[in-house]
């Protein structure tokens, strides 16, 4: 009887151990472990926008998200649906829309070596066509520790879409977690 209990306990223990190890492997994706190779460490998180037309056309209403945060197929769908752009009308004439589409597609996440772009691509299945960066699994994993009171219910932030409010260097393509400052939460650290 005693022997049987021991066997069950050890089997359970081994199983739990295996689960623990696999859990570690799955979550082994934090900043400290990412980009171990030097050439990637020396880069920014995502390629900064160097296109004045994109900054003007898209940045006049919202933070001009770097194209490297979504795959080509997402940008294609985005440009095709500008008349209902998350509930807003963002229609452009065909020539301007085409110009933006070319820029977005040439700089999309699946064409980029930057670590956040690669992280986002790894977190998507081939069928996923996300239109919001904040719905990608990669984004969610990177922000999961933030309670609603700090973002959604924080009147100084209101939404995950306002990157630059917490990531002061966002426009330069830097999203380093050690530089994050959530408005109204000075000194907070995860």
């Amino acid at each position, binding site marked *: 009887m005693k022997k049987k209990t021991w066997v069950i306990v050890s089997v359970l223990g081994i199983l739990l151990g295996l689960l623990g190890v696999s859990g570690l492997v799955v979550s082994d994706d934090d900043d400290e472990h990412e980009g171990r190779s030097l050439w990637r460490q020396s880069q920014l998180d995502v390629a900064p926008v160097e296109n004045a037309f994109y900054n003007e056309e898209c940045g006049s209403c919202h933070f001009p998200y770097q194209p490297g945060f979504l795959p080509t197929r997402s940008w294609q769908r985005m440009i095709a649906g500008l008349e209902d752009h998350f*509930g*807003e009308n*963002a229609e452009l004439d065909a020539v301007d829309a085409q110009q933006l589409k070319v820029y977005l597609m040439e700089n999309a996440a699946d064409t980029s070596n930057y670590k956040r772009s690669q992280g986002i691509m790894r977190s998507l299945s081939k069928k996923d066509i996300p239109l919001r960066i904040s719905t990608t699994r990669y984004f969610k994993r990177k922000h999961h520790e933030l309670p609603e009171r700090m973002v959604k219910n924080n009147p100084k932030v209101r939404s995950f879409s306002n990157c630059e409010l917490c990531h002061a260097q966002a426009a330069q393509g830097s999203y380093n977690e050690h530089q994050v400052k959530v408005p109204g939460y000075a000194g907070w650290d995860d």
Partner: protein
Amino acid sequence: MITRIGMIAAVSLIVPLVSLAAVVDEQQATYRASGAGPFNAKIGEQLWQQNVMNAKDGRPRSCTTCHGRDLRSMGKHAKTGKAIKPLSPAVNAERLTSAKNIRKWFKRNCKWTWGRECTPQEKGDLLSFIQQQ
């Protein structure tokens, strides 16, 4: 010599005003070509404040929702909260200087605010109003 410098100074002051007026005139001429006119800034002001209930969110929308009542002040994007520079050409020299921008924003904003495109008459009245602010 002094009068010549004075002339140059006067002309350089007038030039931006002329280009703004030229752009507005050109737009209003295209509206007239489709049967609209004459245009009236007072009516434009009423249109500016006219509320239309939005079918989707059940709340009233007007130009003032984002731009405010005072066109000389900053506005704020209703959804993103992003600051919108004043629409008044008197405090923001960039306003009404690009026909392309006028067309683009009338199209987007009339649809968002009133759920339809503005008529040439409405656009002409609104331009006359904005121009005077």
